[in-house]
């Protein structure tokens, strides 16, 4: 029973273990190849969590979050080179600035794109993405296709990756913390209500347009901050990599794979798929073969596990442990159950029928 419906304390212990592993990982594994992969994994875990908090919760699939990643990357790169910063830790102070820039940009984009229906929204985010990629290639201050070269970090070569790893880990922890709060909040319920039945939510007094926009902006901020850390990490950015066409598809796949709309799903999906992708790139001689493997995986997940891996595993376990009919509460992996003390609700002392109705 506890496996299926973990109690608060088991959840806490699990979370604590996860944080310990996250913090201790670079201390245990110091092979640079491994820590590089780990750094990318942590970055994408944060990005997928943020993306999911909008697209997974509302059902509005954004294929334009690469705009916020690229904006974050360019914000840090251009400010640090503009100020002639000479690397080191002070450059990380620009990460929040990059987050603010991404969030600010998300306001007008969301304002326009969210006026449309779900399918149109997807198309508009793609169009916006290409506009920004073109801008990065053609505007003077972005240095076009030449790219921007940053001052090197100048950290000790033996554990060069660690500052980037830990910076990303901080963003990951903050993002998960924020999304956990959102999921159990009234705002979170409103997002799920929009996903399930938008017009009905509207008629029940939910300020649908505002709620969607706030969620969109909140999801853009961590993506921008990770973009900034990424730029500093690789040291040299080009428009087609900072604004990568495959970015959103990859992130969406991570969320679908792990479990769209859940809290752990995107973290799990990003960890598995990013590690797999980095491993495949390193070990396969044909550079883009991983894209084919990715595509096949995507199809397999959609067809075989439409709810994602984690929710499906959970369901399987609950089916084994609790025979027929007892698993109703697990049919809805993405319901925002966490915050509401429902169990206690059902046990409440009987109330006089309709006393205060």
């Amino acid at each position, binding site marked *: 029973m506890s496996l299926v419906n973990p109690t608060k304390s088991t959840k806490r212990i699990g979370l604590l273990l996860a944080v310990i592993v996250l913090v201790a990982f670079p201390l245990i594994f110091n092979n640079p190849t491994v820590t590089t992969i780990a750094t990318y994994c942590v970055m994408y875990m944060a990005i997928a969590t943020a993306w999911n908090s909008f697209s997974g919760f509302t059902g509005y699939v954004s294929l334009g979050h690469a705009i916020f990643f690229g904006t974050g990357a360019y914000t840090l790169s251009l400010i640090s080179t503009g100020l002639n910063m000479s690397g080191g830790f002070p450059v990380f102070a620009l990460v929040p600035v990059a987050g603010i820039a991404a969030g600010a940009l998300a306001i007008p984009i969301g304002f326009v794109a969210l006026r449309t229906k779900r399918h149109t929204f997807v198309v508009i985010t793609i169009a916006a993405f290409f506009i920004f990629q073109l801008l990065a290639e053609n505007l003077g201050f972005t240095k076009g296709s030449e790219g921007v070269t940053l001052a090197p970090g100048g950290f000790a070569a033996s554990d060069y990756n660690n500052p980037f790893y830990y910076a990303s880990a901080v963003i990951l922890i903050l993002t998960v913390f924020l999304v956990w709060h959102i999921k159990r*909040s009234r705002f979170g319920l409103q997002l799920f209500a929009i996903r399930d039945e938008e017009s009905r939510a509207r*008629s029940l007094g939910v300020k649908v347009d505002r709620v969607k926009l706030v969620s969109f902006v909140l999801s853009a901020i961590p993506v921008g901050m990770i973009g900034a850390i990424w730029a500093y990490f690789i040291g040299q950015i080009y428009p087609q990599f900072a604004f990568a066409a495959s970015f959103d598809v990859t992130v969406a796949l991570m969320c679908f794979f792990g479990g769209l709309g859940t809290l752990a799903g995107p973290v799990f999906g990003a960890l598995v798929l990013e590690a797999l992708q980095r491993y495949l790139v390193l070990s396969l001689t044909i550079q883009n073969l991983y894209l084919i493997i990715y595509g096949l995986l995507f199809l397999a997940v959609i067809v075989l596990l439409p709810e994602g891996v984690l929710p499906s595993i959970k369901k399987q376990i609950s089916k084994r442990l609790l025979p027929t009919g007892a698993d109703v509460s697990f*049919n809805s992996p993405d319901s925002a159950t966490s915050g509401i003390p429902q169990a206690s609700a059902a046990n409440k002392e009987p109330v006089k029928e309709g006393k205060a*109705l």
Partner: protein
Amino acid sequence: MTAETDAFLEVKNATRSYGGVKALDNCSIKISEGKITGLIGPNGSGKTTLFNAITGYESIEGGDVYFRGQSITGKTPEQIFALGIGRTFQLTKIFARMTVMENMFIATQRKEGWLRSVIRPAGSSEELDRAVEILKFVGLLKLAESPAGSLSYGQRKLLELAYILIADPTLLLLDEPAGGVNLSLIKELGDHIRYLNSLGKTFLIVEHNMDFVLTLCHEVNVMSSGSVFMTGKPEQVRSDPRVLDAYLGIDDFEEEIVVP
């Protein structure tokens, strides 16, 4: 009766057409406060369209809607809901992937800034108490943790009623509450409506189940071809030949008379 002159809800000469079809044709109706009013009429006579016009789901081309003496014509559905008019749909609209209890919290109206609404857990203890009370009232408390999508058709109708009640509307518009609901549940539904009415809530109910409407309602309006052509007590409506006309069509009705 003062209610006649001082209507709680009044629609005056509403008109709305879809292509060539006049779904509402100079339609007028008055609802008295504290009463259960029925709205009947054959399929396609414009009942749902009238609900849509009142609740802001559809604009009307002509005419006006008044609630408590104020014009509410052209207001949006959320504004109308905020004024205290709740409605259910002929085809239920519940939040299928959320639990029954989560459905209950969508309509809670809380004054709080967006930041607080993001951070604070949904459902204060008073809201929870109230949700429990209402779910108990409609008999769905046992299913509080189930996804709403797993409810039967009749249970969905009850949930739709329940999640509106949490916002404490003064006027409830129910579009075919008994449609597709099993007999024992229909009786219960009637009891619920009567009980809520005794607490002061006003109802306007569209329903095809004649027994249900005629035993429950204080007053019944009959619609045909986009307008209300008669209003009366249930027993008047039951015996009025024009009502039969409307349902059967005039030709059929004359045939029925001629045959014997």
